[in-house]
């Protein structure tokens, strides 16, 4: 009766063992989730945020530095006996804010109740001191110290950019895997362009902890720990005093000032008006301030030196002159009658040579010059002839750095526009066009568009008599470092340097006896410049433009000034340019009346 029962019992015993072994094989060998979960349990990953690199000016004056701030993180699983009323009092939050924060936190994709999650960010030193003493009332809440940006003076905001939490889109785009949600990243300006150099390397410490969160020493004796490396300091070519002075002069105006050291391409100042205080975009109030600044109708976040595309106006005549000389359609002595029936002009002059035409900014002269360039009679068809001439012309003009972004070390630089035959084909929808359709480009109006940095670079190119270094802000990455390699390369124009001498002569004449003489001339140094008055749609005033460099020989500074809606170039722009040159070369102005003129005149 009981036969086989022994075997059944033995079989059941063995079977259970086999089931265990199979299940254990699944749990231990095939399923890797448990190992991760175990690490998540016992290993506390402490990130050590490196110091972001500092930013200095050309005289080693500190512009941007770091100041401590504190994030509050929470591990939900460790929160016990949470007194929300007390928490709200200590952290100065409303109940709704508290609830919203918890909700937002739990909605994040990487949220886990076992991992430290960002709860409140960017407490300042003062907030922190208040909160610190009470933190032990709230188990599960931890402090993560990091640093935020601080500024010596409220200047240079658009060039410096700002640092803020990485956006969801950028996080998704980040292939390097360096950033996590809640990390801070440079968002514009130098902070963004040099993010890689500035951010340094994060350190990580792995610590073991028990179920109560009490630390139990380092994980594998620190084998996997890394030290944080601070970011590289950046030494810019900015002269912070000059920069401040420029912003002071631009107060209440829209426009830009770009000053470059011609011999190196280093940017001495990059003024965008109107601007904002960079300190507004740091700390806990970043979001509310950002909303205010970005909604401002004056667009203070619009970085005019790089992003505003203007018609260049008469300053363009210098480029036209050199192109014409290079193409040998005129000589410096070519005289052309100021025929105001074709195109209007200004000032008392009748029949100037090239230098005189530049000094008086004679429109009919350059109308004629462009016709000579575009219609050389290479072919009989005037349409085809213009096309060939324009192609040549475009090649020369773009060699000055116009029409295409220069490649400055800031994001969002605009191209400007120097028209090509293909451009006019599109504009005229493939109907024929010839010189008479497009002649307004002769005097820097029409389709031409340039950005202020290109104008300054143009001034620097003339100052160098034929070449430029791509303008750049950072002259050294790290102490005794170098700039990025592309900024050590000379770019030559297609124009012989002998023709530049003629341009220089002409620009000297502009300041000595031409349109710019009254406000641009300095007693102690020879300034070479060119005015521009760019047509604006009435009832708005014309834009006031001036480019210059000084001294004439061995120039130290090249500058472009563009003041929107401020009338003739000889007024606001020429004044500002000369004051900037004076400030840079001599430390201050001897002409307070000019300074007063710039500051107090409404330019209407």
């Amino acid at each position, binding site marked *: 009766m009981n036969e086989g*029962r022994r075997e059944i019992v033995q079989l059941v*015993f063995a079977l259970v063992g086999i089931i265990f072994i199979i*299940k*254990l*094989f699944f749990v*231990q060998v095939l399923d890797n989730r448990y190992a991760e979960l175990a690490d998540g349990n016992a290993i506390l990953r402490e990130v050590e945020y490196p110091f972001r690199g500092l930013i200095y000016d050309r005289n080693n004056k500190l512009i941007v530095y770091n100041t401590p701030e504190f994030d509050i993180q929470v591990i939900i699983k460790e929160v016990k006996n949470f007194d929300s009323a007390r928490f709200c009092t200590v952290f100065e939050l409303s109940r709704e804010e508290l609830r919203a924060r918890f909700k937002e936190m739990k909605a994040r994709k990487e949220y886990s*109740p076992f991992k430290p999650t960002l709860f409140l960010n960017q407490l300042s030193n003062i907030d922190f001191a208040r909160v610190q003493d009470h933190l032990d009332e709230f188990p599960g809440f931890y402090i993560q110290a990091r640093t935020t940006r601080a500024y010596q003076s409220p200047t240079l905001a658009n060039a410096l950019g700002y640092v803020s939490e990485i956006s969801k889109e950028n996080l998704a785009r980040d292939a390097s895997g360096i950033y996590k949600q809640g990390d801070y990243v440079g968002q514009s300006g130098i902070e963004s362009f040099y993010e890689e150099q500035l951010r340094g390397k994060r350190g990580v410490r792995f610590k073991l902890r028990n*179920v109560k969160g009490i630390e139990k020493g380092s994980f594998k004796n620190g084998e996997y720990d890394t030290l944080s490396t601070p970011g590289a300091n950046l030494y810019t070519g900015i002269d912070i005093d000059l920069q401040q002075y420029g912003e002071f002069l631009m107060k209440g105006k829209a426009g830009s000032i770009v000053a470059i050291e011609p011999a190196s391409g280093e940017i001495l100042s990059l003024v965008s008006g109107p601007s904002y205080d960079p300190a507004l975009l740091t700390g806990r109030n970043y979001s509310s301030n950002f909303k205010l600044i970005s909604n401002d109708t004056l667009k203070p976040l619009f970085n005019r030196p790089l992003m505003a595309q203007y018609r260049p106006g008469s300053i363009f005549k210098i480029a036209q002159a050199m192109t014409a000389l290079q193409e040998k359609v005129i000589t410096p002595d070519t005289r052309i009658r100021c025929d105001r029936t074709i195109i209007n002009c200004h000032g008392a002059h009748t029949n100037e040579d090239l230098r005189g035409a530049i000094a008086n900014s004679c429109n009919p002269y350059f109308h004629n010059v462009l016709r000579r360039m575009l219609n050389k009679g290479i072919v009989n068809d005037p349409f085809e002839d213009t096309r060939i001439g324009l192609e040549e012309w475009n090649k020369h003009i773009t060699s000055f750095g116009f029409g295409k972004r220069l490649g400055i070390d800031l994001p969002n630089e605009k191209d400007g526009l120097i028209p090509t035959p293909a451009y006019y084909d599109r504009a005229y929808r493939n109907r024929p066009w010839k010189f008479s359709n497009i002649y307004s480009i002769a005097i820097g109006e029409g389709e031409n568009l340039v950005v202020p940095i290109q104008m300054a670079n143009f001034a620097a190119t003339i100052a160098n008599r034929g070449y430029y270094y791509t303008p750049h802000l950072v002259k050294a990455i790290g102490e005794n470092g170098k700039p990025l390699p592309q900024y050590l390369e000379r770019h030559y124009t297609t124009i012989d340097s002998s023709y530049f001498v003629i341009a220089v002569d002409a620009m000297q004449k502009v300041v000595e006896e031409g349109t710019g003489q009254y406000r641009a001339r300095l007693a102690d140094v020879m300034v070479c410049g060119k005015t521009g008055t760019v047509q604006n749609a009435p009832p708005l005033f014309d834009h006031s433009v001036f480019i210059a460099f000084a001294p004439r020989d061995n120039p130290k500074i090249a500058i472009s000034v563009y003041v929107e809606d401020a009338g003739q170039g000889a007024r606001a722009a020429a004044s500002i340019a000369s004051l900037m040159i004076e400030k840079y070369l001599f430390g201050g102005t001897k002409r307070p009346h000019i300074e007063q003129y710039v500051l107090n005149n409404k330019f209407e």
Partner: protein
Amino acid sequence: MSREADISGKLDWVSVLLYAAMVGLGWLNIFAAVYDETANQSIFDLSLNSGRQLMFIAAAVVIILAIIIIDMRFYEAFAFIFYAIILVILVMVPLIGKEVGGNKSWIGVGSFGVQPSEFAKFITALAVAKFIGSVGFRMDSLRNQAVLFAMILFPLALILLQKDFGTAIVFLSFLVVFYREGMSPFILIVGISMAALAILTLIVKNQWYLHGIIGAVVVVLIFFGKRTVKRITTLIFGALILILTIESFDYVINNVLPERHKKRLEALVNPNFDPMGINWNVTQSKIAIGSGGFSGKGFLKGTQTKFDFVPEQSTDFIFCTIGEEHGWIGTLLVVALFVFFLQRIIFIAERQKNRFARAYGYSVASIFFFHFAVNIGMTIGLFPVIGIPLPFFSYGGSALWSFTVLLFILLKLDAHRSQVLQRI
């Protein structure tokens, strides 16, 4: 007496070696479970569980020597008396006992506490075996079966009164002994089916699936077996009883139980339910074992157990330490050791020449098996969390001594098997 004691040649050394291996491994893992790298600790430190376990092991050796020296006839002769005494003690425990970890199963002896319920296991085994081995015992007698069930239900009920559910249901393992000695498997099958159905009712939300399956099984059984009237009626009646059971379970669960009890029950049968709440223990236990991988993190290198993520890490959840530090290789070895050990005990039981010794042997095998299956099953989420120790591995004096006595009485009987009259 001295002739009696000198049985070294007849002792089953395979079992002794397996016993020694398991106790030794258990001791090392108890140290690993509480090891704190930052404190410079010794495995012999008496303030640690491992140090105390070593004392318990030493005491166990004394107990073994005593068992071997005592006359083998003693155990059978005094079985009923012991049984009566332990019942009295079990009655008294809730009155004089102290509460440890939610149950009142401990009574104090000096600074050490002991759990009488642990000793009830081998005493009940001896009594049950003696009854089965008695002259004229027939398993098919209903009266005898009633006596046997009473013998296991008394201690079971008394231990339940101490709120020690785990130890109480260990006494169900005697059903295996009854089965081996001739009890109809019907009761076993019905019992297991009822338990399975109760669990299925909780897991399967729509009980009509279960009804369908039962119906299909009955139809198949009728179709393929002998089609006698008696068999068909039995099958249909059985099916009806099962369906009725399901319906009543369902009714109780959905209409009688409050929601939180229902959750608790659901968590009990389904280890994957609410992993971060009610089933936190199982989740952490699986994490610890699973994180060991193929070959483990190495001796004393585990993090989950020694940092208290796993509860009761040196007692009921000692298997987690093995799994974490020695990986699948380690757990495979331990499971294999147990399976081999259990087969060896069955082998020993079967070579006994009287029913008493054989029934006792099966009791030993069943009790070890029950602990092994429930304990490991619980740590890997195959079984509800029921706190019973893993024999020889778990920390604790009472359990170790009780298991030692259980095993070595069998080995003592086995050593003298040629001296007894055949009574099978």
